[in-house]
């Protein structure tokens, strides 16, 4: 395979082939294949239990698939099978090139250290050793996720749900990742808080040119954020395509049902 760095913009960032995860005899997700391109936002939708989280975790190396492969194009332009990398390489990816935003902020934050340290952790993990610079970067990122500068030394236990989620996002984005995984990032929030977070996310994703794979059961979230969509049912992808096309003109009867139930007032 030739490595053409110039053209890597046109090449997939992630290539997923026949990814299957079985829990014993039960299907988590089955034979999922797709490509994700740089700057693309892909939503994985479907009702609860359809396999969205399982798939996301298989892609993010948080859960080893039973079969299939997931390839990632690194910054050198090389396509690497994630499951053939060493654990050290994978963990390095996870704290530099990638981000993972959990539904429950407590799963993605260190609740007992300050907001500043939460944001600074990844910088320190990749070798930042200047306190003043780390703090300046953390201050900047808190601003970008609309957390007041004077909260920098408070720990997240003192934050509202929306603030915690914004902090989790800042903590992930501080190393300028290329690919961010999100599992129901607006899930536990009040509707008005959700709307603000979605706005913020949309702005950040566009500004940073991020590639995102976002799991949501909320089609409105998919509509607002994503370019493309995968619809899952019983662990299978049953429909995929451009978000607007799929949501405006669903082909599968299950998708039609999903869309109509959501769009009803």
């Amino acid at each position: 395979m030739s490595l053409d760095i110039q053209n890597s913009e046109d090449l997939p960032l992630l290539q997923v082939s026949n990814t299957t995860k079985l829990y014993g005899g039960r299907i988590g997700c089955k034979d999922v294949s797709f490509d994700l391109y740089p700057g693309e936002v892909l939503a994985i939708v479907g009702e609860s239990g359809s396999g969205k989280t399982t798939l996301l975790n298989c892609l993010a190396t948080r859960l080893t698939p039973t079969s299939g492969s997931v390839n990632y194009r690194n910054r050198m332009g090389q396509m690497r099978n994630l499951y053939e990398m060493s654990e050290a390489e994978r963990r390095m990816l996870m704290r530099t090139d990638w981000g993972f935003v959990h539904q429950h902020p407590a799963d993605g934050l260190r609740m007992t250290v300050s907001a500043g340290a939460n944001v600074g952790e990844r910088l320190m993990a990749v070798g930042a050793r200047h306190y003043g610079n780390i703090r300046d970067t953390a201050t900047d990122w808190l601003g970008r996720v609309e957390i007041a500068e004077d909260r920098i030394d408070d720990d997240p236990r003192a934050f509202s749900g929306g603030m915690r989620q914004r902090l989790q996002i800042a903590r992930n984005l501080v190393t300028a990742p290329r690919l961010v995984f999100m599992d129901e990032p607006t899930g536990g929030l009040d509707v008005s808080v959700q709307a603000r977070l979605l706005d913020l996310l949309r702005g950040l994703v566009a500004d940073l040119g991020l590639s995102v794979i976002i799991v949501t059961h909320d089609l409105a979230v998919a509509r607002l954020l994503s370019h493309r969509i995968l619809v899952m049912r019983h662990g299978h992808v049953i429909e995929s395509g451009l978000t607007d096309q799929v949501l405006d003109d669903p082909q599968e009867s299950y998708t039609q049902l999903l869309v109509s139930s959501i769009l009803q007032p």
Partner: protein
Amino acid sequence: MTERVETQGISGEHYNFAYLDEQTKRMIRRAILKGIAVPGYQVPFAAREMPMPYGWGTGGVQVTAAVIGKNDCLKMIDQGSDDTTNAVALRNFFVETTGVDTTTKTKDASIIQTRHRIPEENLTKDQVLVYQVPIPEPLRFLEPRETETRKMHALEEYGLMHVKLYEDIAKFGHIATAYAYPVMVQDRYVMDPSPTPKFDNPKMDQMEALQLFGAGREKRIYAIPPHTKVVSLDFEDHPFEVTKFEQPCAICGAEEIYLDEVILDDAGNRMFVCSDSDFCEERRDVGHVGHLGTNPLEAEGND
């Protein structure tokens, strides 16, 4: 063939030399050797029940028991002093179970077991310093999961240690950690010298003596072989600094050594004296005096 190594203690009881049976000692020695081979790496070992409670330094006691021989001379210190209850009890334990000579003089000792301090006097290649460690895992503070901390050590993922120091500076304006201050050993493993005061950290670097660490409750042994690089973690703009004391020792006049505050009377009078009591005594023996002259605690009426 198992050698029989028995000692009859002062109490008349018979013990295996240094209390532990030979097989246990060999197991501990293997852990120590592994620790020496991989400086700063925490080696799990099958810690034994010792006839004293955990907080008393059972890890250090087992390490000492595994390395001590008939010709050794043992010094036992706690907070720099040879006379605290803890130091006296542990020294007596080894006197009873080994019959070895003991000393309070740093330079006469071949094995020094300590709870906090490293002696002020430079240790030499013929000495072994054994530390009693309560909490061996430096990452524990922020990462309670043992599986995760092991992985972090294996993969050299030490960003968390700086998160801890960052928090210090954010809260106190400087790195306030004064004890158990984390160090990087031979550019590879982050190690907790707990509960040694950070004042002593620089002494660990390139020390001529072998340093052995034993944690009884947590069942870990680790080591710093002679002439090993030991660096205290810090930030470029907040470099590591040793604790500075404003005045010299009140009774021997020593400067730039670690001082303890001693309350003199009910009126709240106090003095600062060397925490290393042997070091202080040696200096006074050769004629050094501090601004209080003779030790007020040794004045008439006290002996």
